[in-house]
């Protein structure tokens, strides 16, 4: 990214404007590594950040990559994603890893993947 660190020079006012005054998403549905996929193309008149997300996510893209691409903090990005998810414009592929210890099969797949690097 050609920008500096996202959000650092942005006033809170601007960030609130982007999200219509909300400071947190309605749910914790979007993990940092939830993969987002566009289900539609941007349309005229759409909020520019929403349009940017739809362009960015034509292939699966993690929430954290979307945030970096937009140059916005993750919390703000989650709210924008929730808007698009609620209207069916994106779908979300949530991580299968649980909040407990990872599955043995997943670990085997990770090992194979790393060894093949």
């Amino acid at each position, binding site marked *: 990214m050609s920008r500096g660190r996202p959000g650092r020079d942005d006033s809170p006012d601007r960030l609130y404007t982007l999200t219509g005054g909300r400071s947190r998403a309605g749910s914790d549905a979007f993990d940092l590594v939830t993969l987002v996929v566009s289900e539609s193309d941007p349309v005229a008149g759409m909020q520019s950040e929403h349009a940017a997300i739809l362009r960015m996510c034509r292939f699966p*893209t993690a929430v954290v990559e979307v945030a970096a691409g937009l140059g916005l903090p993750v919390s703000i990005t989650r709210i924008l994603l929730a808007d698009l998810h609620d209207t069916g414009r994106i779908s979300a592929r949530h991580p299968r890893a649980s909040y407990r210890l990872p599955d043995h099969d997943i670990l085997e797949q990770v090992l194979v993947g790393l060894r093949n690097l």
Partner: protein
Amino acid sequence: MDSVTSEQRQTLHSTADNGLKIVVVGGFGVGKTTLVRSVSEIRPLNTEETMTQAGEGVDDTVGVAAKTATTVAFDFGRITLDAHNVLYLFGAPGQERFWFLWDRLFSGTLGAVVLVDTRRLADSWYAIDRLEHHGTPFVVACNDFGGPAHTPAQIREALDLADEVPLVFCDARSRESSKQVLISLVEHLRTVVAAARPTPHPIPEPTP
């Protein structure tokens, strides 16, 4: 926005559907981003998260809600493992004040790499203590800064490291070396999971 960069961004397989996380933690300048860069298929990206927490011990003199906003910046890289699994590596600061953010940001992580500089081992104490407290499996990787050589036993003693925690040496600038660090972590995870198998439901303590 740099549109050229955006267009050249490497895309994931359309079948990718499972994001995985490994956290690389360590003191300032210990080489976290270097390690992430060595193995990442994308140039490491930086993003940040702003979080508020109710202020404690903050004077509420002007009637403004006593909240403090804390911003934590972190680098991350990406490794496509196969058609479905994508591993994200997060380089995160290990300082004490970030730990409440960590709990939220990095929940669900597979495990952690504690990257240490043997000349500044004390920088890692807090991170190791917190990972043990949380039951997050981890390995300790000593990044080679060309300092005086320490034996593994000396380092283990200085870090008060439990016997079952792997200790490895690496050169974070080397892709192969960094890859081996990740492999040692996942092999350790496999051991931890295997040991925990008889009782799958409670979060198990690593058993010696």
